[in-house]
């Protein structure tokens, strides 16, 4: 493994993300689970539903960034903020690859694929760059409310609030 500019791991496009690694996905405020007093208490299954025209879920690969784990989260969030104006009350869902895959396999007998997918992006100033940590999560059934709820609350349910990560 070579460390280049704080990047620990570089995978080719479509390489599977190792099972013991983690992925992180942006969750907009309206897809966070709240209580009756608007306290954020988790993630809604809706957060893992594909939008019309999407073929796979987008996420970022945490182990692409250098350890420790907390630093990886901070780097991944900052990477996301480079091209997207993350809302102050949004969150990020983190899950371990093997847990996410195993939940789909055990609960629904569905094999999903979590693969590296470096993607060309434009930063907020409009300058192009490549997001090397981007991953695609393929084959999660978007109409399976029960499975999405399970992912949101267990395998992919670790929530970090955007405002908890320094600018």
């Amino acid at each position, binding site marked *: 493994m070579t460390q280049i500019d704080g990047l620990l791991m570089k995978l080719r496009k479509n390489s599977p993300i190792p099972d013991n690694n983690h992925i992180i996905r942006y969750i*907009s*405020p309206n897809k966070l689970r*709240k209580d*009756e007093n*608007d306290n954020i208490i*988790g993630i809604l299954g809706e957060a893992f539903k594909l*939008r019309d025209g999407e073929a796979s879920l987008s996420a970022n690969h945490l182990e692409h960034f250098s350890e420790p784990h907390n630093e990886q989260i901070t780097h991944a969030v900052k990477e996301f903020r480079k091209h997207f104006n993350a809302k102050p009350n949004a969150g990020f869902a983190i899950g371990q690859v093997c847990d996410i895959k195993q939940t789909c396999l055990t609960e629904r007998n569905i094999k999903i694929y979590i693969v590296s997918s470096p993607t060309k992006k434009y930063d907020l100033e409009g300058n192009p760059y490549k997001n090397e940590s981007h991953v695609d999560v393929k084959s999660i059934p978007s109409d399976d*409310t029960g499975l999405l709820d399970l992912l949101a609350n267990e395998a992919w349910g670790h929530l970090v609030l955007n405002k908890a990560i320094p600018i």
Partner: protein
Amino acid sequence: MYLKLASTSQPVNTSFYPDTGKDFHQISTIKNKRPQELSQLSGIVKKSHENTYTIEERLYDALALCKIKTSSVAMHITNEWRSRFFSQLDNLMDVENWEEDDKPITESSFTTLLRMIIYIKPARRPGIGSTSKGNIIASWTKDTDRLTIECLPDDRVRWVLSCITDGVRETAAGEVTLTRLQKVLSPYDTDRWFANEA
């Protein structure tokens, strides 16, 4: 005949209600207008969603419509319930919290939510969220037990729950009409979600 009806109808006395949400006075003014004007306003609001308004304008319209519709069923809910619910709607549809790609809450989905609230009469308000297509989501969470209901148009709901019963975790999901909702949820002791904490 119409003039007679208009002249005898009593305007809503706003002093009965506490200040409930940032648009309260505007909504009260609108409610005091004649029914036809209210209907016309609803049409205008609906039309505006279809046009290329800014996200701020579309959210403002959607929020106003949700509050007007809620006020129209005020006799079924307490003032406090409504006041706090308005605050939740304000937060949900705050432009600072809204992704531009998401459709604002639709009238048809919100109507289903209100009818569901009237039908099941939960003492606890739900937490609220929404789908990218503008359906409102009501969720009740008690410890690790959770019930989530997506309100679809035309009195249909998509529900999913996970709860512990007799020491065993159960999960279930389905899609039903409002009239069937209580029946399909009844095996799961819904008081755990709907009853106020003592």
